């Protein structure tokens, strides 16, 4: 299918570009590890066993979002600066199908971070990486990666008109960690926050991760995650069409 091929080629080339920046690569992995280390140091004072594994898994998911949130918000602006945004719009390929791979490449870098965090937990803190349901875990990871990519996709499209997009993207990093319950159970958060959390696909991905790691079935959570992801995808697609039409009306495709 040409659409699938398009997404894959676009994703692959975006990965190539991303891998050529030391800043994004090294820092993308290192930054979440700072937080993970702090978290592990906090947890080992009181927790053990399952709680530690839960912390490790949660911290690893945090890294995937970190890799996405800041970069996604200014993704389209950087295309505009390079002068390629116009070319993307002028091409016959559907615009949303070009933006999604950009976000997907960011979450793929986040995948490195996820693995690094789990390994770091094992090596430095002795937190085991034996999972109750390894296959389920891998599927849950895929669900988390794809759903965060879809959130990044939506973020890219929403933020394109704001000059301060990078600032908002950075500010979103920690709130989403909290909202999606990667580490902190939703029951600890104020009640009014929970509906927002449940509406975000990665929340369910995180449930799936913990279930697969600690014992329990991840499949229902994976399903909900993907369904919500599809909703985000539809929303982002519709918004991107509106965005392009608005840009063509107000001539903002080429503005610096």
């Amino acid at each position, binding site marked *: 299918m040409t659409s699938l*091929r*398009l997404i894959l080629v676009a994703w692959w080339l975006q990965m190539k*570009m991303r891998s050529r920046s030391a800043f994004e690569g090294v820092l993308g992995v290192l930054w979440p590890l700072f937080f993970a280390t702090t978290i592990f140091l906090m947890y080992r004072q009181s927790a053990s066993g399952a709680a530690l594994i839960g912390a490790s898994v949660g911290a690893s998911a945090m890294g995937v979002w970190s890799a996405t949130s800041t970069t996604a918000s200014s993704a389209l602006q950087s295309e505009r600066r390079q*002068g*390629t945004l116009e*070319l993307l719009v002028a091409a*016959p390929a559907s615009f949303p199908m070009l933006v999604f791979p950009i976000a997907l490449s960011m979450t793929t870098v986040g995948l490195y971070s996820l693995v690094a965090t789990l390994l770091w937990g094992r090596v430095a803190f002795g937190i085991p990486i034996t999972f109750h349901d390894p296959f389920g875990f891998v599927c849950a990871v895929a669900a988390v990666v794809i759903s965060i990519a879809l959130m990044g996709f939506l973020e890219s499209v929403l933020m394109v008109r704001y000059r301060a997009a990078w600032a908002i993207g950075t500010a979103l990093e920690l709130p989403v960690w909290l909202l999606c319950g990667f580490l902190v159970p939703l029951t600890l958060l104020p009640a009014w926050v929970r509906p927002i959390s449940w509406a975000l696909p990665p929340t369910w991905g995180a449930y799936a991760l913990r279930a697969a790691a600690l014992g329990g079935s991840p499949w229902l959570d994976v399903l909900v995650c993907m369904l919500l992801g599809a909703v985000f995808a539809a929303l982002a697609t519709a918004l991107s069409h509106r965005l392009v039409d608005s840009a*063509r009306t107000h001539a903002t*495709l080429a503005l610096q």
Partner: protein
Amino acid sequence: MDYAIEADGLVRRYRSRTGVRRTAAKEVLAVDDVSFRVERGELFGLLGPNGAGKTTTIKMLITLLLPTAGRASVLGLDVVRDAREVRRRIGYVFGGDRGLYERLSALDNLRYFAELYGVPAREQRGRIGELLELVGLTGRERERVESYSRGMRQRLHIARGLLHRPEVLFLDEPSIGIDPVGARELRTTVAGLVEAGTTVLLTTHYMFEADELCNRIAVIAGGRIVAHGTPEELKGNVVDASVVEIETFGADVAVLDRARAIPGVISVDTQDSGQAQLLVVRAQLGVEVTRSVLDCLAGLRVGRVAIREPTLEDAYVELVRHA
């Protein structure tokens, strides 16, 4: 009649917001009732000074901008309603450094755009190889674009624009910043494309380029078409004059006015080139004005004096001056 490009009363307004609080929203009329037709297989030139509306017009034709009013169609397809179909059949090449992925190699850039334009997978490799050959980048395709010179980038742009064998190619100031040799190669390539049947719309402010390449030209200034026709027809507007060029130093307004007052003189313009000035005097055919003009310049240093036929540039300056 099946035209390649039809523009019918195109209008484009910009609203520019001044300041954060949008106190005064200025409206700029960038394109004002532009109409023209380009036939299939033609090389059509859109000539005009900076800010005349050339790029805006092209962007409306390639579906990047929605016209404020008016209609346009490419290959019979409406640029607003059938945007996607139009995009499949056209190529867009613009001058300058931007528009390429710096961190990727030329080859990867072409692969990406090939995918974007739906070049079938099995054809991609061959087509890319062919185009690299055509633009003379074979052997350099694995280098990253960030190391490319302006000329190389321009050539890569052309390769990119041709990947999907477009029926109509839009070139927006393609030879800007290119060295003379590179520009000449570019023109040869473009001429070759037209010979092979591609319709080309070229915007430029290099007169000799338009003169050399284009079958027909439209001159656009201040958002309006001020003239159109073949290069010969446009030159015909000024063929009833001869041009005297005199290199001089320090000719002031008084001197110019005296020159303008000479009977037979149509216009006197100056071009500055460094310290010297080039006085361009258009005079009625048959009237000998050189002696009288030199008399006006008495006391000033005078360099080269030449008498020549009017060129497209003279026609253009005339047209644009009156716009």
